[in-house]
């Protein structure tokens, strides 16, 4: 276990070095936060009657999405992993007395956590300081708070395993473009990061309820702002757990198969 932790540490440390990227990331998140909130506020002002979410909950939800964006977005590409698949340096990964799946999971997790560590606080503070109705409201009740923390932790793993699965598929396709890109874009839309799930037509809502993507960002933050009740929250957490187990099983089977068929690129 310690060795996987040290992968995590090293990735985390490396990630923290990229301060310029973090500033850029913060600026992007602030920009999108302002745009999103402004657009929805404009909609609500014109006709506030038949929208599926309360405005203040929606605004807080949008800001939370932006603050934790780098932990939630699903088109993350670990360039190191993709590079070693393409150039054959994966040979060295296979010479380590370790499990490839866990090794890559800790790498991806480490990188994403380092990214969010640098980015979430400034975005949160900025959003808290805004005037009403643009403001982020962090107030919630204790059960909602606790449940959403659990959901957030699980969604971090969920997104890691989803991303990892894409990278394992790259071992077959040898490239992250094509099928993996399509998967990532679909996942992004169905995760509710582009348009919140309550605004989806009902058939699409049903689909996204079954798929794992919604449980990455939509579920924990809507739980936090109180748009999902406790009962649904507990069910959601169970679904998260089920998806994590399914993804790990699929990922492991695929990675085993990929290794059996492995051809080391470039001699």
């Amino acid at each position, binding site marked *: 276990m310690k*060795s996987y932790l040290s*992968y995590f540490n*090293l990735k985390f*440390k*490396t990630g923290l070095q990229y301060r310029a990227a973090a500033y850029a990331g913060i600026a992007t998140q602030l920009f999108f936060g302002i745009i999103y909130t402004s657009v929805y506020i404009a909609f609500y002002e014109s006709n506030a009657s038949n929208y599926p979410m309360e405005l203040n909950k929606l605004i807080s939800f949008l800001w939370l999405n932006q603050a934790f964006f780098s932990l939630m977005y699903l088109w993350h590409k670990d360039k190191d992993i993709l590079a070693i698949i393409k150039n054959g340096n994966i040979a*060295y990964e296979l*010479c380590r007395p370790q499990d490839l799946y866990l090794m890559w999971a800790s790498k991806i997790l480490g990188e994403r956590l380092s990214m969010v560590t640098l980015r979430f606080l400034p975005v949160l503070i900025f959003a808290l300081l805004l005037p009403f109705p643009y403001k982020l409201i962090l107030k919630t009740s204790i059960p909602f708070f606790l449940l959403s923390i659990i959901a957030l932790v699980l969604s971090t793993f969920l997104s890691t395993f989803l991303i990892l699965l894409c990278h394992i598929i790259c071992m077959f396709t040898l490239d992250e473009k094509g099928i993996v890109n399509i998967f990532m874009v679909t996942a992004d839309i169905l995760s509710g990061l582009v348009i919140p799930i309550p605004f989806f037509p009902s058939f699409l809502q049903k689909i996204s309820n079954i798929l794992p993507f919604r449980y990455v960002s939509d579920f924990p933050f809507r739980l936090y702002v109180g748009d999902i009740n406790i009962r649904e929250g507990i069910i959601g957490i169970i679904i998260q757990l089920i998806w994590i187990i399914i993804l790990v099983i699929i990922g492991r089977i695929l990675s085993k198969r990929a290794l*059996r068929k492995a*051809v080391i690129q*470039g001699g």
Partner: protein
Amino acid sequence: MSFIEVKHINKTFKVPIREDGKFGAMKSFFNRKYRYINAIQDISFSIKKGEIVGYIGPNGAGKSTTIKILSGILTPDSGSVCIDKMTPWIDRKKYVSEIGVVFGQRSQLWWDIPAIDSFNLLKDIYKISDEEYEKTLNELIELLNLKDIMNIPVRQLSLGNRMKCEIAASLIHKPKILFLDEPTIGLDAVSKKAVRDFIKRINKTNNVTVILTTHDMSDIEALAKRIILIGKGSILYDGTIGKLKKNYDYLRKVKITTKDNIEIKRDYIINQVKIKDEIEFVIDIRKVELSDFIKAISSKISIIDIEIISNDIDDLIVRLYEEYKI
């Protein structure tokens, strides 16, 4: 039972054929054809503990494939490998903690950070105790002269310096077996010698078994007593360098500068070319001693200058490749 026992391993790669022409890409999109390449066929050998074996062969002969199978990365299609009572690709996790691998054309160091950080990571991966790590690291630093280079981010190192760090990284966990796939690529003479001395040293002091592939025959000469020659996926020769030399290294070129004219016909003279004042003889030293030939010739003509050119091992290998048509 030898330390390393390889029996009848085969490996075939399936390669899609790309068709040429306008619609070639489209055609192969719908109807993909494959070509099968036998990377290695029926390879068997055994290696004793503490041996240094040079594994040589022309490009594409299957050297790297063998190394990858032996290090547990690839699974052969058939055949068995038993190293230290383990099968590499089955007991992979346990097995690889006992081996060190250097792929000369790849990097195991983290590109953006100094090599020392990669070493520290390897310490955790291989679960090395603090004292032991300290001891091995100091030894490596001293022997490979890493002191000034291991704190520089790897991307800023020259190829040779990076290579030294790569080799150190492969040895930090004190492996019992060391696989070196072209370890001296890009090294200057001094570094080459340092690396060779180092390999010899760990072979002697720690009884590390070394399997080495290279195109640099001087590496082989300096390190390995035994060589295994492979071509087109099969083993062609397995034995000592000395024996190989005896069998294949029997021609000498003798260049003589003289004003006189001479024409000798003997069975030991394979070839004789005259360019201006220079005559070049090719002598078969199995049939005549070189000194006798020189005596005979100096009794007939006056020699201004003489030069004896012995084949280096590269010529030998070229001859060998030619003989086996590989």
